[in-house]
Structure formats: C-alpha cells, structure tokens
C-alpha cells in the first residue's frame, strides 16, 4: 500500500490543473518525486510542491495507491483524470473535471463537486457525498458520447445536463437533479431518487428511472403501460420518438 496525502498550502482562486495528479502517475514515487511533478497554474507550469504539502507512506504499484486530499480543493481541476486504478479520497470540495476519462479505480469525494464530474469515464467508480454541479458523466463539447462505463453515485443533488450523451455505465443520484438529465442518451442507466425537469430529451437508448416528481415532461414519449421495479409501479414511457429512440423512461 502507498498512501499519498496532499493538502493545499493556501487556498487559490486561479485554478490548478491537476491532470498529472492520479495514482498512475504517483505509484512508486517518493515525496520528492511527487513534489517536482509539474502542474499548470494559470498560464504557467510549476512544481506540485509549490502548492501542496505532500506526505507519502509506503511505495506500491498503482492498484495499491491511495491519494488523500486533506481539505478543500475547490480550485483544483482534473483530479484523477484518466486514472486506471487505485483510489482517491477528497475530504472537501473539488473543482471541475474530477475523474475525467477515468478508466478504473475509485474516487470518493466528501464534499461538493464542480461541473463535469466523471466526464467521458469508461470504468471505475465515483462516490460523491455532496452535491454535483453541471454535466455529471457527460462528454466534451461536440462529442457524441459521454460516459461509457463505470458508476457515479451522487449522494446529494446534481444540476443540469446530468449524463448528457451517456453511452454506457450507471449514474445514481439520491437527491434532485436540474434540467434535462439524460439528454441525448445512447445507453447506460440513470436512477434519480429525487425530482427532475425535462428528463431524457432525445434519448436513443438506455434506461432512466425517476422516483421523485417530474416537471415539464417533453412531448416526445409514448406511454406503454407500467413496469414494476422493487415493489414500485412506474409509468413506462418509450422514446424519444423524434430520434426513433428505444429508450425507457420510468416515472411515477
């Protein structure tokens, strides 16, 4: 086991871009190695050690590496980007693109996450014990596919465009979501335990279950009876008819 503890020396407003901060890049590295890893801060690159206190316990291969952020990293973007294994624990809020393109491993966030959490991830798991902002599990601008695999659990609320262009994997939101969850979906499964507005616009494929209230249901779904899941009977809607969709939207 290798545990790397990171804490910000002081809070920043200009974001730090941490696309190098992941277990893959830290595995087997010493404290000194890690401190010299370059990170972007505004328009310059600086050693990670300029911003973070770094403590390393042990040395191991990537599956057995755990990164722990102590305190808020609300202005540190791209933590865990492209990680393939290992674990990241964030004890505070985290900035945009956390877990972007993640392939495996696990990220636990004990705080809120800014937009693009788990964007384009293909595997692994993200557990957010706070609220998420926009575009959980979506794709980069112009892409046809967002999240393709893995699982994101949001224990709080999420805002608009949850799972936009999702092509696979699973998103579970315990709270409410904003506008247009599951928009342009082409696969995967989304479960929303709270409320949602205008869900599943242009869904081609996949499954969306909304246990709370739905506002402004889009006029592009055919109602096809009911379906019972775990003792609850849902209205079964199929569509989106405008894209010849075979997606299933279950609502109360």
């Amino acid at each position: 086991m290798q545990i790397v503890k990171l804490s910000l020396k002081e809070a920043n407003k200009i974001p730090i871009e941490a696309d190098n901060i992941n277990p893959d890049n830290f595995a087997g590295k010493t404290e000194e190695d890690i401190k010299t890893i370059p990170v972007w801060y505004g328009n310059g690159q600086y050693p990670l050690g300029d911003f973070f206190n770094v403590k390393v316990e042990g040395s191991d291969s990537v599956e057995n590496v755990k990164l722990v952020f102590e305190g808020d990293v609300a202005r540190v973007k791209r933590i865990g980007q492209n990680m393939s294994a290992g674990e990241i624990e964030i004890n505070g809020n985290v900035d945009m693109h956390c877990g972007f393109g993640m392939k495996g491993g696990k990220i636990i966030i004990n705080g809120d996450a800014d937009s693009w959490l788990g964007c384009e991830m293909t595997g692994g798991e993200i557990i957010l014990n706070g609220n998420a902002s926009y575009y959980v599990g979506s794709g980069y601008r112009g892409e046809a596919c967002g999240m393709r695999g893995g699982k994101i659990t949001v224990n709080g609320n999420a805002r608009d465009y949850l799972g936009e262009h999702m092509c696979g994997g699973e998103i579970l939101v315990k709270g409410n979501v904003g506008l247009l969850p599951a928009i342009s979906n082409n696969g995967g499964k989304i479960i929303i335990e709270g409320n949602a507005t205008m869900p599943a616009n242009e869904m081609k494929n996949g499954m969306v279950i909304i246990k709370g209230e739905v506002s402004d249901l889009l006029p592009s779904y055919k109602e096809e009876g009911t379906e019972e899941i775990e003792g609850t009977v849902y209205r079964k809607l199929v569509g989106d008819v405008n894209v010849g969709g075979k997606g299933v939207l279950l609502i109360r």
Partner: protein
Amino acid sequence: MPVIKDAVCSLCGSLCDDITVTVENNKITKIENACILGHSKFVGMLEHDRIETPMIRKNGELIPVSYEEAIEAAAKILVNSKRTLSYGWCSTSCEAVSGAIQLAEETGSVIDSTANVCHGPTALAAQEKGSPSATLGEIKNRADVIIFWGCNPVHAHPRHMVRYSSFSKGLFTEKGRKGRKMIVIDVRRTDTAKLSDKYVEIEQGSDLLLVTALRSIVNGHEDVIPETVAGVPKAEVIELAETLMNAKFVCIFFGMGVTQSRSKYKNGDAMSSLISDLNQHTKAVMIGMRGHYNVTGFGQVATWETGFPMAIDFARGYPYYNPGETGANDILVREEPDAAIIAAADPGAHFPQKAVRHLAKIPVIQIDPYPNPTTEIADVVIPAAVVGIEAEGTAYRMDAISLRMKKLIDSKFKTDEEIVKDLTAKVRELKRGA
C-alpha cells in the same frame, strides 16, 4: 462635399451596406438609409462624448497620459498577469480581432467575445446539431413563412424586415409582405408581434417544450402531444406545425429569447433538429439574430485562427475551449482573472453584478471610443477610433457574409488594430527584457 455611397453600417448584425453618408469638413452632416440605431451611431460621432485622451487611474482618478504611457502601463499589467481575461472585440474589425487573438496567445490569456452573453448558446447548439442556415438573400427571394422566435427586430434590427425578411421582395417573393406569413413566438406581445399574422405567446422558459412538440408533429407523432404545450393549446401547436410543413420555404429567425431562457443552448439544439425534420417536407433554415455588428466576425476569425468561436483559454499555449468553464462570466464569477483587457464591448453594463464586482477589484485595461460603465472600473483607458466610421476593416453580417467597412472621416485616435499591435510589441519587449 464628398458623398460616400454604399457605406456599411457598423451597429447591429444586419450590417446594412447601403448607407449614404455626406461628409463636410471631416464631419458627417447627413445620413441616408440608416435606421434609428445606425443613425444615432453615425450622428453620434458629432454629439456624443468621446474618451478624449489615454488615461491611467491614480489614487482613484483617471489621469490623462500619452498613448505610449498608457500602452506601457497596459503591457505591464498583461506581462505580470497569470490569468488575464481579454473580452469583447465585437464592435470592431476582424483585423483587430486577429491582433487580439495573437495577443491572447502570447500572454496565455482567456479571450472571449460578447457572444458570451448573447448567442454563445447558438454556437453550443451548432456543436450539437450543426447549423442549417442560408444567406439572408435566400429568405428575401424564397421564404413564404418567416418566424421570429424570441427576437424583436423592430427594436434590435430595425431594417431587417425591410431589407431581408418580412417586407422584402425577391424573385420568388414578388408580393413581399402580402405573399408571406409572418409568425412571432415570444413571451410578450412585442412591437414585432404586433406586425405579425400570427402571434404565439408561450410561457417564459418553455421554448424547448414547444420546439419538441413541433418536432413530434412533423415526425408524425401527434398522439404524444398533451392538451397544452408551453401554455399553447394542442390545436394551435398542430396548426403551427402544419403551416410550417405546408410552406415552400421556412426561415426561423431566433434571438435571445431562445438563447438566454431556461434551457439555453438546448433550445437552439432542438431547433436545429426541427429544421432538419422540416426538410423532409419542405425547405427550412434558421438564422440567429446577432447583436453587435461584428460578433459574427469574432466567431469566424477565432474559429479559423484557434479552432473555436469564443471562450478560448490559451493558458497552456494552445487553445482550449469550454464555455461554462472558460467563458468570460464563468471565470469572473469564480474570481479567477487577475487582470482584464476589454475592448469594443461593455461588460460593466452588460454583465451581472457579481462579475462586475470582480472586474472592479482587478486591473482593467479598456480600449473604446466612448466612456461607459466599464470606464468607471478601468485602470488604463485607451481611446480608439470608431471602426466603420473613422477606421476601415472587415465585419461579418449575421449570416456570415463579410463586408468591407469604409473609413468615412479622419480621426486623431489610433485604431483598435494599431493599439493591439502596439500593445503586443510592448508585451514582447517586456517579456524579452525580463
């Protein structure tokens, strides 16, 4: 006394190019063909206050300085900044935009245009679904059904309807307004709505519901439409869809009612799909009603020079784009910038107060002909010639047709293009020196 014909009006995105300007003793004394907006701009050259001299703020007051001093002060701000916001560049020429992009690239800045608070969502929509459009002359010559959706050309583009749309006549539209159906979809009965054949009032923020319902009908799924959509009865929605399908040529002009309301760019995204679906039955296109006369030009130049139309972050030396993250308001609201350079736009007036409050805290360089709310929070103020009147250059109309703006009178002020060039040279000098 020189009379200049076919001058291009540098006010709104209609970019009317038939203005006749009379100049006497280097003063514009007569304007023909311009609307109230254009007229006020040309005449404004005589009546409005100008920023008379470069200024630097000292102890809270703006003190007159020379161009050289102002440029040096501005360059120092840029060189010392780790995250500059370069914003605006829409009421200026493409040549100035090109210079601004190079400056942003060299200083690792974020550069954004006024599309950030206007048709930015239209770009995002095009990135989802494409942009099914045409030049304005196609509408003039062919369109028999015209929709104005969430826009109010009577106020924002006063000559649009006469030159390009409702009232214009063309080869296949000899009857002009009489041969056309004009539909307005909006949340309140605007002055444009009053001129329409059909006004559809929708609940504010529910555009996406109506667009989706129209798509469902056009695609043969009338059965999924509930009794009312967006506050409009089903029968009326069906009638509207049939009007579109039975037309020979449909154009939807859309404005900020579409881009700024609840579901933002997803409205334009769905509208693109509606246009595509309609083309199974007839011919249909859509055109965004662009505000600043060259906001379209910024998008064009930025796209060919950086790959992206706006919200471009050069922090890493190459362009990165992600509105929501790299837009002017995104970074201001997050209090990221430690300096700003603002030209040919007025965020002081047009950004929400939280963004303006951050601008007020950081060094701000302003380049503009006129004082405005941004001047009140600027630290270095550099006056500029008015492009399209005192300086020539290229501008793009709302339908992406570019035109050459003329220089009509001489000016003692430097042009935006010259200022940004001087500034870039000074930045290079300071960087090399350091």
